[in-house]
């Protein structure tokens, strides 16, 4: 399978402290790829580099075969690389529907002038965003809270809103940062089902998590420890790896 995302020998330091050291891994198209590691392993830094919030000191990030290492976050998003956040980042003063409507931003194109004048194109864009949001609410089980302010929802539902919003943005690669954080076991189970369903529909998912239950849905896992990839492979291989057991599982 072709690699949708390739991280090649990426290094990054903060104030002389090397957080990532020549990290390389690939995300094959159509898979669910897990990236796990203990706290402080450098997962968030790596995730920020992949999504464009941080630039690497050295190394490359290739997406669909192109070097995107210096591309901005919106530019990466426009090419289909979308992420969520460890703490759900909903638009607190917008309703659930409006949050998800905002997800269709890049699928529409009317600008500021069209918006001011309320041109037919601007109105058509809003109708399209609304239709996409309503479909997403249906799909992610958010219809009952569609008119509620997203900031007033409990954490689990905020995470669903964030996921639905990311989904309507039609990503090719969805990067999820600790998506099970703050969820109870039922919600985690539902999340796993949702992610598997999205993956079956063709969405490639990169999953950063320290939740071992969640990463069981991953077809391939990379283990990051102290800024280095120490193991890669299927879950059973990872679980059998002595370095992983020592460094991550504490066995």
């Amino acid at each position: 399978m072709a690699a949708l995302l390739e991280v090649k020998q990426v290094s990054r330091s903060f104030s002389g402290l090397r957080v990532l050291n020549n990290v390389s891994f690939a995300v094959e198209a159509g898979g669910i790829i897990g990236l796990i590691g203990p706290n402080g392993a450098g997962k968030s830094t790596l995730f920020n580099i992949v999504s464009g919030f941080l630039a690497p000191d050295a190394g490359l990030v290739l997406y669909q075969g192109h070097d995107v290492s210096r591309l901005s976050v919106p530019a990466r998003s426009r090419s289909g690389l979308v992420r969520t956040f460890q703490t759900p980042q909903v638009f607190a003063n917008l309703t659930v529907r409006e949050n998800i409507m905002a997800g269709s931003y890049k699928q529409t194109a009317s600008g500021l002038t069209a918006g001011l004048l309320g041109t037919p194109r601007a109105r058509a864009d809003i109708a399209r965003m609304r239709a996409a949001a309503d479909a997403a609410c249906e799909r992610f089980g958010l219809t009952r809270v569609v008119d509620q302010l997203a900031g007033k929802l409990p954490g689990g539902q905020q995470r669903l809103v964030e996921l639905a919003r990311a989904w309507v943005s039609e990503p090719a690669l969805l990067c999820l940062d600790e998506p099970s954080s703050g969820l109870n076991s039922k919600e985690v189970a539902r999340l796993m089902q949702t992610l598997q369903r999205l993956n079956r529909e063709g969405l490639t998912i990169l999953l950063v998590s320290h939740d071992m239950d969640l990463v069981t849905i991953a077809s391939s896992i990379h283990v990051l420890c102290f800024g280095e990839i120490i193991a890669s492979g299927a879950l059973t291989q990872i679980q059998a790896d002595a370095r992983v057991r020592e460094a991550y599982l504490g066995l």
Partner: protein
Amino acid sequence: MKQFESEVPSSLPASRLRSVRYRMWGVVAVLFALWAVAPGFASRSVIDMLVFSGLYTIAGLGVAFLLGQCGIVSLAQSVFYGIGAYSTAYCTTHYGWPAPAGFAIGVAISAAIALAVGWPVLRLSGYFLALATLALAIIGQVLFTEWDWLTGGTLGIGGIPHLNLFGFVLNSPQRFYYLVWPVAALLLLLHRNLLRSRTGFAMRAMRDAPAAAAVLGVDNHLLKVKVFVLSAVLGALAGSLFAHYVSFVSVDSFGVDRAINFLLLAVLGGAKTVLGTVLGALFITIMPRLLSRFGDIHAVLFAGCLIAAVIFLPEGFGGALGRMAQRLRARQART
């Protein structure tokens, strides 16, 4: 004001929804009728206050949009207000050009300065950005004073001709009133459109969670610059209208206190609602004049009013009205 579609409870039956809308339009019709006949019975000074409210609505709309929809505190509006005023004053008195040329030049210069200054400055955020815009207001005030070859310095520029609309000279507050408010209403309508557009969603998304907005493809910096330029254009337009209304401009009208007034009206009115700008503008124009009857203590009383408004109406007048309307709709939905 109905800002988002979601403010109308989805459970409201169609007939009741129609009835609510009819009542709303009834209120609008009454307000319009009052507005239309006001110059017939109100005194000249009252109409003068209302004209200034209209001018401040236009300038304040830009500040309110930056604050309420983008989360940007701008204290630079007095500069663009001044540029608009001086441009048309200079062009019409020194060159004898028609007023529209002065308006266009003021708008163009303001937009260019907003772009040039906004591009680097809008990379800042929070109070750093507020201080940077304050610095711009101070620089503007100094230049308006020092460049007396252009602005007339403290002596100002007088003899600015009144606007002439197809032979109808707007040489009284009553006449100007019928220009400034329709212009303000048109701009409010355009901004309401913008608020409900794709760009409006992007602005509010950026305000609430900029990182998440960027992930959805919103270029936060570019969007901020665009809205800043739009805000400057509104400031310049208001300034140009002001110059033709009072026929005389001097640096006293474009100081930091004016910038604070524009921000104040946005905060008091409720920057998240378009209608709030009008209420804020009416408040900061009318309230000081009402309180001036109490003599020297009027400034203290005004400060007290401001503190009370901020404490009891944290979302501003527009926010409070919106909440009241929501409650009314909810009550109607229940009955």
